[in-house]
């Protein structure tokens, strides 16, 4: 960890050199090997010029240099994956805050620049730069090693890693950033890192599979959930032909792989909910199952969004009237989604009340896409009222 900046500089230098030389001379036979060899040599140069290094152990290096230079770099996919996994565990260390873990993962594991990260977080470059620098300093101070934790510790540490990947994915999936390509990249990167966990024997746990399954189900709807203008299309209005069948099948595969052991995680429950959503048709069975999964999810951990989603499922399974009574107990009147939910629950029961709640939601909503959806709903209800 102490040479992290140096390593980053070397990588930028190497890519700069590559863009210059490859442009002139054409692609080398094995570009990956070329990049590794050049960066290895640059790293050795750096170490040679490093003052402490020269004073303390330069003698020894002279003795062994010939050996160092001859060391073959292991370029197998396995070795590259293993190194990335070790780095993932080092970055997702509980000693730094979660938002820094996500930032560092994007920066170091996914190669995102500070500007892109700032864009994804709807923040500015300075804030992100400071956050990353502080996090790197902390990892150095704590002398965090780039290695997989021991068997006894790995499950606990894996929890932090999974949380970071979950948030990374959510950042891409739910972010209000207008940059659709970037948001999709975040989701793809979260899935790539999660896949590495599943492909490694030590980290291939039911929880890791459940999270990957959840990501597959959600991303299967990526193309269907926005229109050409980048506006959100709600689930019930989506064209299911645009849902990615291959990802749905992958989701089912990892959900099956997750059904071992005796512990149920929120990832399992959320993946199962997402699974039921891959059947568009409204059946009694579907919504009853979704409701029971939400009941369990809330018992594991409370969250306002899950409470609202559970109430929506309740309206589908047990009827709108019961859902309205339940919604009013939730005590979430400051949340635009709460009023938006009551708006849809009151629709066709009491349209005046429905419009009233949608208008409150409109004043509370923060993003343009959210406001547009609400405006459309209000217009629609007013048309029904006037006819």
């Amino acid at each position: 960890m102490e040479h992290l900046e140096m390593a980053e500089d070397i990588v930028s230098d190497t890519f700069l050199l590559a863009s210059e030389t490859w442009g002139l001379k054409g692609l080398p036979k094995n570009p990956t090997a070329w990049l590794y060899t050049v960066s290895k040599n640059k790293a050795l140069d750096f170490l040679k010029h490093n003052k402490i290094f020269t004073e303390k152990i330069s003698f020894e290096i002279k003795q062994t240099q010939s050996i160092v230079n001859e060391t073959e770099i292991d370029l197998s996919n396995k070795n590259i994956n293993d190194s990335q996994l070790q780095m993932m565990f080092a970055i997702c260390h509980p000693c730094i805050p979660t938002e820094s873990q996500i930032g560092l993962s994007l920066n170091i594991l996914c190669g995102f620049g500070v500007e892109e990260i700032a864009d994804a977080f709807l923040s500015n470059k300075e804030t992100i730069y400071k956050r990353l620098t502080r996090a790197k300093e902390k990892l150095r101070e704590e002398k965090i090693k780039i290695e997989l934790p021991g068997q006894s510790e790995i499950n606990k540490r894996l929890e932090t890693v999974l949380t970071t990947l979950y948030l990374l994915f959510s950042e891409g999936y739910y972010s209000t950033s207008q940059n659709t390509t970037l948001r999709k990249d975040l989701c793809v990167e979260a899935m790539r890192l999660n896949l590495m966990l599943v492909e490694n024997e030590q980290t291939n746990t039911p929880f890791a599979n459940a999270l990957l399954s959840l990501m597959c189900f959600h991303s299967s709807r990526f193309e269907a959930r926005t229109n050409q203008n980048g506006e959100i299309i709600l689930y019930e209005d989506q064209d299911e032909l645009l849902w990615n069948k291959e990802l749905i099948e992958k989701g089912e595969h990892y959900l099956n792989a997750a059904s071992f052991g005796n512990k149920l995680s929120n990832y399992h429950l959320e993946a199962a909910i997402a699974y039921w959503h891959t059947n568009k048709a409204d059946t009694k069975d579907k919504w009853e199952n979704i409701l029971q999964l939400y009941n369990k999810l809330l018992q594991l951990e409370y969250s306002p969004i899950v409470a609202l989603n559970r109430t929506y499922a309740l309206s589908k399974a047990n009827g709108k009237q019961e859902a309205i009574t339940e919604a009013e107990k939730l005590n979430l009147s400051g949340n635009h989604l709460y009023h938006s939910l009551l708006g849809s629950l009151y629709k066709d029961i009491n349209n005046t009340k429905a419009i009233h709640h949608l208008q409150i939601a409109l004043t509370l909503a923060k993003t343009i896409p959210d406001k547009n959806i609400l405006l459309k709903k209000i217009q629609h209800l007013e048309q029904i009222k006037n006819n």
Partner: protein
Amino acid sequence: MKEFLLVFRRDAVTREAAPSPEQMQAMMKPWQDWMGSLAAQNKLVNSGNRLSSEGKVVKPGKVVTDGPYVETKEAIGGYIIIRAESMEEAAELSKDCPILQIGGNVEVRALVPMD
């Protein structure tokens, strides 16, 4: 917010009062919906446990008797812990408990925090 223990009791002695497996199955949904409702209000602290009808009671003199402790004819069937502003609110929340539909009752007790 304070925490309250809800203890569910029902008739465990009268044979006719015992629910059939089908009835037990049918009871699952209202229970899960009620617990989900409490959890959605962020008022469920601990989902507690259901208790098996088997049990033993150890009395002074190390006398062990079979069967759960039964005063009148009601035995404890399970418990959960909830969060509420007051005893009144905790009792109010208990009014939707499905055990009331089969003649059982809910005892509401405030937890005394450990110092």
